[in-house]
């Protein structure tokens, strides 16, 4: 009764284990073939030695194991070459490896960071001192990160959404659309340090003197929250464009047509139907962009003036702050790390931990906010 293919079943599972697999693996593998499995079990009912450790059950359900209960002798896996089977294992291992790395980052920073985070430092400004106990806290960098993130995304969001709408809903003439797409790609691919040095050249021009501090002689400093924010917006822009466009294209054509069929023109369709329909995508783009802005260092170092404290320029309430210089958590970490000038590694760890918390919180908050609103289109 045992056919050659059935003999290949290397480890026929015992009946008890089969039952547990059947229940546990139901979700992963939909089809079960009770008939064939029964044949395989009865034809060579030798239960090969027990468990190989705590992950035995897990491994049994892993796709490369041929003895799972719905094993089909003609399944394609049987025909897989050694390379393919190794590739599958490697892919599996790579996924696990990434989880380990992510957990390590969070855990390490949690341990090192929590060790050094002091509430007093969260609420006090940094002070110029070589002694770590005298050099104050990092309130200003926290504020700097928040200001810069908000400023950057406030600039990037409308421009990015506008570009995405044009690309997705108009996109004519075609060559222009392709040019815009390439431009977005180029901006996305430019290293932030290159954007930063480019920004420095631009904003030191006298035309942009209103954006930053000017010396008495007329020389423009070219470094301020405005300047850094503008370049940060460029970093976030491709992410906003990408996910907004994706969301717009996920809206089926008949939804647009339903709006046209009510006698609406394109403008109201975009404003009242498509943009609300794409808000989840817009939110995702914004959160990704904010994450990038909060985490960028090069632009801060070059374009924010690298003063530890916020230093407003002029007297106007908000404008002076944005025209002034400051620092962010990233530049603070850089400066205080053993590689930087400050050399206060404890504070660097603490600040890095705070930065990580801000970014993670941001991602989760926006994800939770938009997922609730994500429409489920019937295509």
């Amino acid at each position: 009764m045992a056919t050659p293919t059935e003999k290949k079943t290397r480890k026929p599972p015992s009946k008890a284990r089969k039952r547990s697999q059947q229940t546990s693996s139901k979700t992963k593998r939909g089809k079960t073939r009770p008939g064939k499995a029964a044949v395989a079990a009865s034809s060579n009912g030798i239960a090969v030695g027990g468990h190989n450790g705590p992950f035995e059950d897990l491994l049994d359900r892993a796709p490369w194991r041929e003895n799972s209960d719905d094993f089909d002798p003609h399944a394609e896996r049987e025909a897989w070459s050694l390379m393919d089977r190794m590739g599958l294992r490697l892919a599996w291992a790579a996924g696990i490896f990434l989880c380990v790395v992510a957990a390590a980052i969070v855990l390490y920073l949690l341990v090192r960071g929590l060790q050094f985070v002091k509430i007093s430092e969260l609420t006090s400004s940094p002070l110029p001192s070589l002694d770590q106990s005298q050099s104050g806290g990092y309130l200003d960098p926290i504020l700097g990160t928040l200001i810069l993130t908000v400023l950057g995304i406030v600039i990037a969001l409308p421009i990015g959404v506008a570009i995405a709408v044009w690309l997705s809903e108009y996109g004519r003439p075609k060559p222009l659309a392709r040019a815009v797409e390439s431009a977005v790609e180029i901006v996305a691919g430019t290293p932030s340090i290159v954007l930063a040095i480019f920004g420095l050249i631009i904003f030191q021009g006298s035309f942009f003197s209103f954006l930053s501090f000017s010396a008495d002689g007329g020389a423009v400093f070219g470094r301020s929250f405005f300047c850094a924010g503008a370049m940060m917006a460029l970093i976030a822009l491709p992410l906003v464009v990408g996910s907004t466009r994706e969301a717009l294209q996920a809206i089926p054509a008949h939804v647009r047509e339903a709006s046209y069929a009510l006698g609406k023109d394109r403008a109201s369709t975009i404003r009242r139907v498509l943009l609300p329909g794409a808000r989840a995508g817009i939110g995702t783009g914004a959160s990704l962009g904010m994450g990038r802005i909060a985490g960028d260092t090069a632009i801060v170092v070059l374009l924010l003036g690298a003063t530890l404290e916020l230093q407003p320029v002029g007297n106007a309430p908000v404008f002076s702050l944005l025209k002034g210089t400051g620092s962010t958590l990233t530049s603070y970490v850089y400066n205080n790390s053993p590689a930087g000038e400050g050399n206060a590694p404890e504070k660097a760890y603490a600040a890095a931990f705070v930065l990580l918390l801000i970014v993670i919180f941001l991602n989760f908050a926006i994800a939770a906010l938009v997922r609730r609103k994500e429409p489920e289109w019937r295509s």
Partner: protein
Amino acid sequence: MEKLNTPPPVRRISPDKKSKPAKPSSTTAASKRNGKVSVKTGRSRPKVESIERMRTVDLGIAYGGKSAVNGVSLQIKKGEVLALIGPSGCGKTTYLRSLNLLVEQTPTATRTGKIMLDGEDVDKLELTELRRKVGMVFQQPNPFPMSIFDNIAYGIRERGSRKPTRRVLKPFVEEALDRANLLEEVKDNLSHPALRLSGGQQQRLCIARSLAVEPEVLLLDEPCSALDPRSTAAIEDLVLKLRSEIAIVIVTHNMQQAQRVADRVAFMYLGDLVEEGTVTQVFDKPQQKRTRDYVSGDFG
């Protein structure tokens, strides 16, 4: 707000346009299965005076030179439901989409022939005006990603420069929902997102959304193909209820549905209008062989 209350314009038409002469063809003996497809409708269908609303004269649509609809002439009348039947790809949906010029959304589409709305060429009408008069419901329920209330109000809003408030709009929204037999189910949660409704409710919402702009003609493109039998029955009831108020054209793959809801049936095949007549004519005494084969299930 009076503007919203204005009833659709009714134009008088000469009575001789009312019905096409029956095609003089050799009346072949009734097909072998004719007995099985006779009209069986459990719903009452009161006789309503039918008034022509739309007509197409020799309408042809081609996509990039490839013809999809050839020279179709049909009348669409208030007071009766016109069903378009035919196998997939025969041009039913294209024909339907041409009636509110939605085909022109496709850049490659070209049109020949005339489409008249109330005796006036639709090319002379403003596109948005035409589409308000000729509403459409799609195969897939497609409410907008907003509340039930806003879905209905969307069509009414922004007609003028002044934006009517919610309080002003409410009676219109409720009326539209009521006409679509949906008000009872949703009246307590008008502010809930429309995409949370069931498929059948969504489709009735889409009908209500079309009704809110007071159309003269309602185009239904296989409105039940994504729905379960109960929701289908609800939609069919609704169609029968509305037929006295507005002209309805329904595209359907389901011949039983055509028999249940339609007064007149047009059979299309490969872009041609093969046969058109009352339900009894088309299903029980089809004149053309193609029609006979199709309604008896020999092909299609």
